[in-house]
Every structure is written in C-alpha cells, then in structure tokens.
C-alpha cells in the first residue's frame, strides 16, 4: 500500500499533520512535488476552464500521482469549527477526482463534518488495529496543525498579503509577488501571523461569514489594517468566496484610506504583468509615506 498525497489545496494547511500521522502509523506515502508548469499544464486538461486555479493545480497533482501510488488520500472537508463551510469546490473536488482517477487508485476520502479528530481516528483504526497507537499518532501530529512556514516580519513598511494558504505557500503562484514586494523594501505580513483566537473571532462582519478560511482572511484583514501601509489580495479568477469578501474588504480599506490591490490570477497570468502592477502599487505607497513624513517634519 502506498498512499499518494497531492501537494495542493488543503495540503498547505494539513499536510504536516498528515505526514506525521501516516508516519506514526507506518503507512508508506508519497507526496507530489511542488507545483511546476508541467503539473499545471496537465491539470487544466481535467476541468472546465472557468474553475479557479487551485482546483486546476490539484488536478495536475493527481495526474502526477496516478501511476505512483495505490491509494489516493483526499479527505472531503465539508464543515469545520461547528458549521463553517469550506467551499463548494473543496467539497466537489473529491468527486472530480473520482470521475477521472478511480481506475488508477483507490480513493480514501473520509468526510470531515465538524469532526476532524474522529474522522482521522476512524481512518487510523482501518490502518492499524491498535486504538492507542492511533490516538498517539493523532496527538503527535496535532502540533503540526498550526505550523506554517511564517514569512519573517522585520522592519517597516508593511504589506498585508491576503490570500488562501494554497496560493501563498504554493511558491509557483506566489513567488513573483512576494519577491517583488521584498525587492521594493516591504515586509510581508500574512494571516498566519495572527493567533488562532483572533483568526476565528466572530466580531463585526466576520460573524456573517460562514466560510471558514474566508472568515480567517477577513479577521486578519480587520486586525492588521491599521498596522500596515497597504493590502494586497490575491484572488483566483472564478473564486466565489473571494469575489464577495474581497469586495467587503475593499470597501473597508477605502473608508480607512488604505491602498488595496486586488491581483486576479489564473493559469494565463504572466509574472511580468503582476510585477509591473505591484511596482506601481508600491510607488503609490511610498509616495504617501514620503508625504506623511514631510508633513510630520513641517
């Protein structure tokens, strides 16, 4: 038995957890490599052109895995944190995987509906008979649940880079963006810099948001807005939740007079185009900073 895990979508949040979990249970697994052009080019063949980039990317990863594993691990995240939804596409991706890849491997897709722990526990019991071992494996893995490779924050001025974790930590997508901000002398803050309690807060508009990751984005936005010089929001073309919440954030940023840049990406986006837009955006912020400084001196 060899379990394939696609390095895409929810992997960027729960990947370390799964790795530790499977390791403890002595399950052999293979993870697809970081996204590259070939993976993306394969991925777009499987779904209609109007779906969001992350879904196309994960299809490419499934394609990469298809002859290299006997099983595919792709849990179906329906609800988390007491009734917060993920996104229609994260629910549907498991079915899409079934349509295209069920002849290549057996798909393990436990359904997670407010029972993250139990779902993994039950899955563990199928892999080993010893419940204690399963419990240990999960407890061990828990510490990886909130461990992201945090981008280092030091020195001003700061940019809040808002996007889903599978966009920011998939460097194939985010690298040109992050690099450009750094080259321009900005420090990047992401929602991962905020503690869990604040991320899940239900204050203000956040309580209306019933998409779990979108609520986190909004809370991070709300919390960091006064501290940063500008906000950059990376949105996949065709992303439903972002199309709404980004608009809410944009309005708020306007009210507080903070520069807000929406970068809409898809598989045709060229790095050069992105870089030009970011540079122009940075110029605006720098000009504002200069003006403020001079007004303070005067």
């Amino acid at each position: 038995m060899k379990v394939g895990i696609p390095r895409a979508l929810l992997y960027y949040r729960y990947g370390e957890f799964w790795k530790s979990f499977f390791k403890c249970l002595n399950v052999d697994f293979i993870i697809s490599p970081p996204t590259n052009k070939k993976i993306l080019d394969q991925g777009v063949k499987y779904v209609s052109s109007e779906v969001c980039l992350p879904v196309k990317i994960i299809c490419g990863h499934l394609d990469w895995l298809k002859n290299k594993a006997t099983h595919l691990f792709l849990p179906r995240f329906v609800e988390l944190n007491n009734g917060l939804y993920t996104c229609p596409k994260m629910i549907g991706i498991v079915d899409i995987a079934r349509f295209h890849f069920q002849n290549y491997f057996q798909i393990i897709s436990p359904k997670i509906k407010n029972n993250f722990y139990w779902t993994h526990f039950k899955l563990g019991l199928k892999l080993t008979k010893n419940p204690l071992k399963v419990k240990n494996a999960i407890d061990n893995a828990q510490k990886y649940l909130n461990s992201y490779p945090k981008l280092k924050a030091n020195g001003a001025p700061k940019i809040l880079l808002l996007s889903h974790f599978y966009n920011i930590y998939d460097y194939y997508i985010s690298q040109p963006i992050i690099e450009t901000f750094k080259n321009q002398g900005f420090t990047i803050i992401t929602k991962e810099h905020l503690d869990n309690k604040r991320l899940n807060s239900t204050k203000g508009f956040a309580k209306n948001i019933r998409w779990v990751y979108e609520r986190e984005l909004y809370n991070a936005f709300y919390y960091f807005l006064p501290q940063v010089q500008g906000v950059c929001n990376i949105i996949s073309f065709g992303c439903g939740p972002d199309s709404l919440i980004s608009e809410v954030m944009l309005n708020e940023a306007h009210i507080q007079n903070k520069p807000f840049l929406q970068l809409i990406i898809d598989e045709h986006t060229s790095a050069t185009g992105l870089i030009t837009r970011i540079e122009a955006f940075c110029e605006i912020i720098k000009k504002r900073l200069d003006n403020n400084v001079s007004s303070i001196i005067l």
Partner: protein
Amino acid sequence: MKVAFPYLGYDTIALKKFVELLGAESCLGPPLTARTLSLGTKYSPELICLPFKITLGNFIEALEAGADTLLMAAGARKCRFGYYHYLQENILKKIDNRHCFYAISQYTPYEFFFKKMPQIFGVTPQKVIYATWLLLHYSALIDYFRKLIRLTRAYNFYDAQKKELEALRIIENVSSFKEVQKAKKELRKIFSPIINTSNEIIRIGLVGEIYLMLEPFANYEIEKELGKLGVLVVSKRSLYRHLKHLLKLDLFDLRTISNAYKYLKDSPGGEAIKTVGEAHIFAKKNIDGIIHIYPFTCMPENIAYEALQKLARDYEIPILSISIDEHTSKTGLLTRLEAFVEVVKRKKFKG
C-alpha cells in the same frame, strides 16, 4: 408601502399576489432589459456571478419607479447567494438612502412566519401563513401553466405565443384557492385543442442554477427558443418546487438526491445536487438530450458540470453546458442551441 423584489419569470405573478395579500402594494419597476443588466454590472463587483448583477439592476430600477421597501432572499450556506444582500444593501444605500432593505432568510421558517414578515408588513403571523399557503397554490398553478406552454410551444409554436397572454390574464385574475382550481381547468381548455401530439418530437431536459432557469431575461428566453426549434423542454425546477423544498414538503427531492449520489457524494451547495440528480433521472428516462445552464463561474454548477460530463459518457446522452454572463451574445447562444438540437435529432431519428 411600495414593495419590490426581483423578478422571477412567470412566478413573479405569484410573488406579487403574495405581497398584495399582506396588504402592501408591489412596485417592481419596468421589465428587465439590457439597461437593467448594464446598471447592475456598473455597480457590482467585477467577479460576482450574474444573478447578483441582474437583481441589483432590478432593484435600482424599482427604486427609480418609486419602491420604498426592497425584499431579497438570503440565508448563507456554502454558496455566494446568501451573501448577496450584504453587498447589495450597501450599494443600494449609496444610490438611494430613503428605502428599507430587508434580507429574508430562506432557511428559518419560524422567524419568517412569526417575526420577520409580521414585522415588515405589520400583519399577524396567521395572515403570513395563509398568504404563504396561497402562494404555494398560485405557484403550483404557474408550474402547471409552464408545463402546458412548453408542450404547446413544441408542437405549435405560433399558436402558443398567441394563447400565452390570454392564459396569463387568467392567472393574474385568480384570487382564492377555489379560483386556482377553476383556472387550471380553463388553462387546459385553452391549450389542449392546440396541442397536436401526432408528430414525433425530441425532448430536452433543462437543468441548472435556479435563477437562470426561472427568469427568461437571464437565460435569453431559452425555453421559448427551444420551443421555436420544435423541442419539448422538460424541467423540474420552479418556484413551486423550491417552496415545497424549503417547507420540506417535496418528496421528489429525495429521489433527486439519491439519483445524484452516484456522481456527487455530498452537496457542494447551491443547486448542484438537483442539477445532477435531475439530469440522471432524465438520462434514465431516455430523454433525448440535456441542456445545463448556469452563471459563469457559478461554483456549485462548475462541480455539477464535471459530473454531467461523466454522466454524458456513462449514458451516451448529448449534454450542452452553457455558462452565461453579461457578455454572452444571444446570436452565439442561438447558434449553439441550433447545432445541439441538430445533433440530438440526428442521434434520435437515425436509428
């Protein structure tokens, strides 16, 4: 009080009666036109789905016509729809600050009957329940009318066009439960003589996102155009069914969901599960082809699309998926419809 809500195709008549039963005047603004859409698009976020843009334009025009109370369905779940009203309320407030905007959650019947509606309209809960009960019957009548008109169009398009107005007038004049029954009989009398079932026609199942299925302006009158091509449109979606679904009275629901299960093991939200379930039922019933319409980038229907691709392979049934946004051209759409109908006809009559 002048109440506006978004147009909903033929079912608008039923909703109007509902509002009037609650003692208010309805003021919906002019019928939907290209102006509605361009107004809506102008004020909408760029990446939002089409129903948002049309309903927003619809509200703006209603305000222009003098509406002072706007009602929008709500209820946040997996999909964008439940969030429409937050943004729309904001946008509309900037355009006109004298109106009241109410979001009516679809999934909290208790609140609907006992709090929200009595509060808005200043009536007793009993009255709301009675009005809803009648709304159910009105929409059932309209559902029935749509079935008849589809049949007539397929066999006798030009007569159907002529009789449509007459039929709608009958529906508009209905004002009690008894009259609903009488109207049904009258409708049958109008349409049955001109339905001539002698020649063989093709049947195409229509599935997709509910607003696009119900509002002819949003779907470029797809049902009429198919009727013109001599196609019998089969569709299970209507306000009547939706209300029954919300009130948990629709037994057909279970069948739809169980039929969707082969393709979607879990609902991705919106109407995807119905789209797939109905398409599966159509495929099993030997319907000749399926047309799937949905707003461009609609999340649940994007998933349904992938499922329908698989279904098309499994059942060797022709499926045409059409995603619609404000840039869709009617001519392009008609060409695609004609080509598809040709394919379906050739497949059916060659054997």
